[in-house]
């Protein structure tokens, strides 16, 4: 077998691991420490995340995460394709809630181009974003419970999620990565069958969530594995850049739907769940409560949804309808120009952020007047959430690392872009 010497191994990451400040001293120290590799392929790392841990016995002294195993070159690709062509790529960013990413991208492009979608389209987008939030939090809760040891909860939350995927199947045509939104509106109208099914879903959702929670909320193993583990204070959370449920689990009441409202969230009445403790259990409770608030929002949306068009009638920026393309000359020319050359927003830049289930997803677009963006930066919440990992795991055991990663809920497709 080939043996590689120590000098040939890339040293920068090991050097960074050894240089980390360790203000931990354990009582009976072993003679030397151990470096453990929690590799990219691991059942509990929520994707391809590599962790290098420096251990003293079973206590973690230092930790260095390594990303980049799923880096697919999104920002470079965005510079080479038009704004419309990038919509399917945004699905695959946070692949647990694809529709929320679609909405974020389309809002960013619309802001840059200076257009606004009609009200019915905005309401449908809001409804779909909230359903994506429920779907994503269900997987987060299920995966967290599975990592800690409760396998049944995972199967039950996936069963609920399948109902949402069925609804999306009828609405968008695809159950999972559905590129449903378009610049200027949505692809097709919500059929009455879909609205009836959404109503049925939210009627029976809370009971099923209560059933899942009854299994774990008072379970001694679950609570003791998560209580007091991975604590971060409110000030530290703001410094490290947390947004979303992780920030609200540390006592800071900040939600982009209230702070910088977009679409019609101003008209909706919902609470923002905040817990002060800042540990894994608080973050889990925030997610479970957020799904209940989302159900409230969807109920109000179903009551208030106006009739009207679902796509804007602006021929220079928005693709015209198919029936008109086949019969009228103007629309044919506009369709050709938009598909081949892009929508050409004016020269300028804009940063738009929405409240994704994982945190704040932001798109920073710079346009030079051409059909494709000059620069597109994706501000992904999961990458920033993972940055806090070395600080959170110090002093805990290896099995707590799994619980902490589960409560931060990273998605590597987003963190690695």
């Amino acid at each position: 077998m080939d043996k590689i010497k120590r000098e040939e191994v890339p040293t920068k990451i090991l050097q960074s691991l050894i240089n980390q400040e360790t203000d931990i001293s354990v009582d009976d120290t072993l003679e030397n420490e151990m470096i453990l590799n929690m590799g990219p392929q691991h059942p509990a790392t929520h994707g391809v995340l590599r962790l290098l841990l420096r251990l003293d016995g079973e206590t973690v002294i230092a930790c260095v995460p390594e990303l980049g195993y799923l880096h697919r070159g999104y920002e470079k690709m965005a510079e080479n394709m038009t704004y419309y062509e990038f919509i399917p790529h945004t699905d695959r960013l946070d692949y647990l809630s694809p529709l929320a990413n679609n909405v974020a991208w389309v809002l960013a492009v619309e802001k840059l181009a200076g257009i606004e979608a009609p009200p019915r389209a905005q309401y449908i987008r809001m409804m779909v974003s909230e359903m994506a939030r429920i779907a994503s939090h269900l997987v987060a809760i299920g995966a967290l419970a599975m990592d800690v040891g409760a396998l049944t909860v995972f199967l039950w939350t996936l069963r609920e999620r399948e109902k949402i995927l069925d609804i999306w199947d009828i609405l968008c045509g695809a159950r999972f990565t559905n590129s449903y939104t378009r610049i200027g509106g949505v692809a097709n109208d919500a059929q009455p069958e879909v609205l009836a099914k959404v109503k049925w879903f939210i009627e029976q959702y809370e009971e099923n969530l209560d059933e899942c929670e009854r299994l774990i909320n008072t379970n001694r193993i679950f609570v003791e594995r998560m209580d007091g583990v991975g604590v971060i204070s409110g000030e530290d959370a703001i410094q490290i850049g947390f947004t979303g449920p992780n920030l609200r689990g540390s006592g800071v009441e900040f939600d982009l739907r209230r702070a910088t409202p977009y679409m019609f969230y101003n008209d909706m009445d919902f609470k923002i769940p905040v817990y002060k403790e800042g540990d894994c259990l608080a973050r889990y409770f925030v997610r479970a409560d957020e799904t209940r608030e989302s159900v409230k929002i969807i109920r109000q949306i179903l009551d208030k949804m106006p009739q009207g068009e679902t796509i804007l009638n602006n021929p220079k920026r928005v693709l015209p309808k198919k029936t008109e393309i086949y019969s009228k000359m103007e629309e044919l020319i506009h369709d050709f120009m938009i598909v081949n050359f892009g929508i050409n927003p004016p020269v300028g830049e804009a940063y738009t952020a929405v409240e994704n289930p994982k945190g704040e997803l932001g798109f920073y677009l710079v346009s030079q007047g051409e059909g494709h963006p000059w620069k597109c930066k994706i501000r992904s919440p999961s990458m920033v959430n993972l940055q806090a990992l070395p600080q959170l795991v110090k002093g805990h055991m290896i099995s707590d690392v799994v619980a902490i990663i589960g409560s931060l809920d990273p998605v590597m497709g987003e963190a690695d872009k």
Partner: protein
Amino acid sequence: MDLKELVTNKLMEKFPEVVFDFSDYRDQLAVTLNKKFIVEVSSFIRDDQDLQFKLCEDVTAIDWARRKNRFTVVYHIMSLKLNSRIRLKADVDESDCSIDSVSSIWKTADWHERETYDMYGINFNNHPDLRRMYMPEEFEYFPLRKEFPLMGIPGSLPLPKKDN
């Protein structure tokens, strides 16, 4: 007083020797300044009681590829008190491709600056741990520069061999 006036007055008052350039495109406040003053201005807008820009959301760079100052480093900061954002921009030339790091002011800028270094090759002075973020450590190029082709340079990334 709206946000732009508030920030403009405060910055002009506190830093009279710095040349600022304010812009309000699409209702988003953007401040362009010289890269030498980035640490002082950042520290001021974080600590000032009326502004409190404490949440750094993003650090990135733009490659213009044709003019004298080739790169522009862009910072997006959010204020929880005022519920609004500010964008700081500083030009960096290719010949002196470095700028001071703000990771001592906002801890979250650490990984964002590493990513900017990985993609564009801009060095950040006084950064605690500047190494590549996404590409493997031995990679020699900077992918998001405009001269790097989309399909990559063949042979720059090794692949394991296939055994039959």
